[in-house]
């Protein structure tokens, strides 16, 4: 039986849902409004 109740800080591994280190590019791809605005500007 394996139970991951031994919690570890997410700092010790990559966390796909981490909000602490979002790059500008990831924000760009996740923000539809920002992406559309930039398209209009171009």
């Amino acid at each position, binding site marked *: 039986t394996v139970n991951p109740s031994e919690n*570890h800080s997410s700092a010790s591994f990559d966390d796909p*849902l981490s909000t602490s280190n979002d790059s500008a590019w990831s924000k760009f791809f996740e923000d539809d409004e920002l992406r559309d605005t930039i398209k209009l500007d171009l």
Partner: protein
Amino acid sequence: PIYSMANFGELVLVIGDHHIPSRSNVIPEKFRRMLVPNKMQHVICTGNLGSREQYDELRQLAPNVHVVSGDCDEMVGGTNDMPQMPPTRVVQIGEFRIGVIHGHQVLPWGDHMALAGIRRKLNVDILVSGHTHQNEVVEHDGCFHINPGSVTGAFSPTQTKLVPSFILLAVQGSTVVCYVYELINDNLEVSKTEFTKKDISSSLSSY
């Protein structure tokens, strides 16, 4: 394409037992900041969402949403405009067949021998269930039983310690990494377990 998530494989949010608004008001803010569109490819929900609005929010998160009905969904059926959901589902993601059931039908609730019977009946590698409001990732006979707990930490008559939680699966072919997210005293705790389908018991590892 999900550029920032590419190296994690297919991301599957496993969530349920919201009970909004009957037992809780909202999903905790720290969770809401993480659960945004364009990160996950699938949502698997164990049911008992509580309202049509919660279902619509799940549909905003990912293109593929797989929901089963919970015991409370059956009680409120037709009164909150919730579409009728099946009691079980089977989803193929990567090389894994994943079965989903709310869990109130499995007696005793949360019992792994009883869950194994459902898992064999559905012929799946991973069985997702809820209802107990206690998250779990358990190996059983070389397969896995996963329970995301309650995302709101909603009241349950069987739990004295109510911890809001959900799970994220990162599937790459025959390998899946399972992340458990919990709010303990409003602090986010994340744990990670990785397993592969082939030779599943020997390749299991925790971090």
